[in-house]
């Protein structure tokens, strides 16, 4: 099996998914993408072996908050680090209000420096 680190990108915005994908792939990560939280849950249910989940905060059907809560509930997924991402300027407020337990945050627009810093923080570099 491939020893590349696996990252699940969850974002309803295709451009964001793509930017994460290009950056992460070029850094040598295996990237799997989901259009929304429900899709992510489906993927993780069949394959929980991810080293990182990067999720947008505001998505239809299942928000990033709900997704992260779900992930922390299951033994298989509770140890996967989560990095939230959002284009909302008051994301920190939202994180506090929803008692969202995340390990990092990448504000949008996505910049590689920030991505690298957060990856380092969660121990993927």
């Amino acid at each position, binding site marked *: 099996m491939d020893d590349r680190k696996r990252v699940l990108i969850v974002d309803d*915005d295709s*451009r*964001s998914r*793509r*930017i994460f994908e*290009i*950056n992460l792939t*070029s850094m040598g990560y295996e990237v799997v993408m989901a259009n929304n939280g429900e899709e992510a849950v489906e993927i993780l249910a069949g394959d929980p072996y991810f080293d990182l989940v990067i999720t947008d905060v505001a998505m239809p059907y299942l928000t990033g908050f709900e997704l992260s809560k779900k992930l922390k509930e299951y033994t298989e997924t509770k140890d996967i680090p989560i990095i939230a991402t959002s*284009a*909302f*300027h*008051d994301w*920190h*407020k939202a*994180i*506090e209000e929803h008692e969202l*337990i*995340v390990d990092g*945050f990448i*504000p*949008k*627009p*996505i*910049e*590689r*420096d920030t991505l690298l*810093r957060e990856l380092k*923080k969660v121990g993927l570099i």
Partner: protein
Amino acid sequence: MMIIIISIFFAEAGIMLLLPFFHALPLIGEVILDSVILIAVMAPMLYIFVFRPLRSRIHEVSRINKDLNAEIDEHKLAEEALKRSEERYRLLFDLLPYGGEALDREGFVVDCSIKNAELLGYDRAEMIGKKITEFLSSESKLVFQEKFPLLRQGRTVQAVVSMVRKDKRFIDVERTARPLFDSEEKFSGVLALNVDITERKKMEEELKKYEHIVSSSDEHMSFIDRNYVYQAVNDTYLKAHNKKRDEIIGHSVADLLTKEVFEEFVKKRLDRCFGGETVNYEEWFNFPALGRRYMDVEYYPFRDIKGIIAGAAVVVRDITERKEMELELKKANEELEERVKERTTELEKKTIQAEAANRAKSEFLANMSHELRTPLNAIIGFSEVIKDGMAGPVTDEQKEYLKDIWESGKHLLRHINNVIEVSGIDYGMAKLAITEFDISDLIKSSLAVFTERAIKHNIKISQETEFEECMIFADMVKIQNVIHHLIGNALKFTPDGGSVRVQARLTRDEGRETKDEKASIVLASEASDRPSSIVISVADTGIGIAPEDMGKLFQPFQQLEQTLTKRYEGAGLGLSLCKNFVDLHGGRIWAESEAGKGSRFVFAIPTRREKING
């Protein structure tokens, strides 16, 4: 019964002849020779003997005797009565509460009562024999001289005189003198009664003062008896009611004030006063001479000597002006209150409007921010990956343009962020998102961002930190923003060929207490040997800041000098935002500068040992 014997004798011898006869007379009855009438006619003498029966004679004598004795007894009784009477009068004389004295016709004291002597401070004996003028003041002596002749004429005289006591004190005496006449109707002296009126006079004078006070007072004063009838009023009262004294005194209150007013305002209150209570009230009254006036009325119960309430002393004060002022004031107050109310309502309305506007603005900002960031995400994200060759090979020219796109995008993002942050902070929305990070690393990466720009302008940028690695707990994004602003500013205002130096050091005293409650708890628990603050400074060799501009530095939308605004880009939000970020951390930021030689911007924030949130 009388027996007359007529005999004629020629000689004396004839008498002798008759003697035995005479002796025998008792035998014929008890007679007595009453008288012998001798008529001598030459020799023979005619004797007429008149006899009266003896019994009737004795009877007569005894009657006379009896009468005489009775008279003597009567006299004795009268004398005793007189004596007793005199004693009684003497006693009365001495017991009288007035001084009594008797003078002779020349005015010398012949007698005086004990009371009179006491009045003047003498013994009775000392006074007797002295002339009355000795006891009179020099003025009163004149009065005496004037009045004494009147007494001689029989007239009773009354006068108030000033008498001199033995101790030289003067006393006022009311003297009533009556002339005395002897049995021959001749003036024999004077009886005088003296009443000491010193106290009375003093009281009268006191009373006069009170009278003066009462009559000259502006207050309407009256005395009303228990039948609601006026007994006394002062002049002010008369004037107010346009009446003469006798038109009020003896008349009832109801008559004067009308029955309605009496029943409505006066009667019940007077009754309370008659019950012993001092009653006070204020009311509008109509006065014939004054019109409608607002009066302060007081009823004082008046007790007589025996302590029984005899009526009410009434004092009425005109307080119309005060009342009118009060009413005016009240009106003004009400108007003011009304206006304040209106204003408050207006303000409340405006506040609600403002709050709604603010909410709308916040929502708008949040949406706008999101809407602006989303396309910027594509611009920045894609230009970065393409320029770095991650999406296939690019030519140098393409790379240069892509870099321009990427940098412009980032520039635009910074402006958007600034605007959002300033708006957010102004409405208290800003909060810290504390994470742990290496400050040394942050400075390094911040400098890296500006390296290219520095090289382009031939500006030397350097980092001088006292440590290799230093993990701190802070809002990394905000601290990075501050450092970026400061470095960006330094580069902006430093001419080509200059230098920018970033320094960092740990200290124990530069920090200030944080505004963040949770953070301050952490601070308090810190061991004292640990550095309490980290101080970061950015120094340049730029145009510097004039002392008068120092104060404006950290205010929003301030960029020094209009010329600079044109020469140097920026909205002037940077430094005020930096200050807000540093303040949020409980730190402080300041600038040191010499115009023309460069500036140094310094900020210090407390270090934290633990992650606070999450």
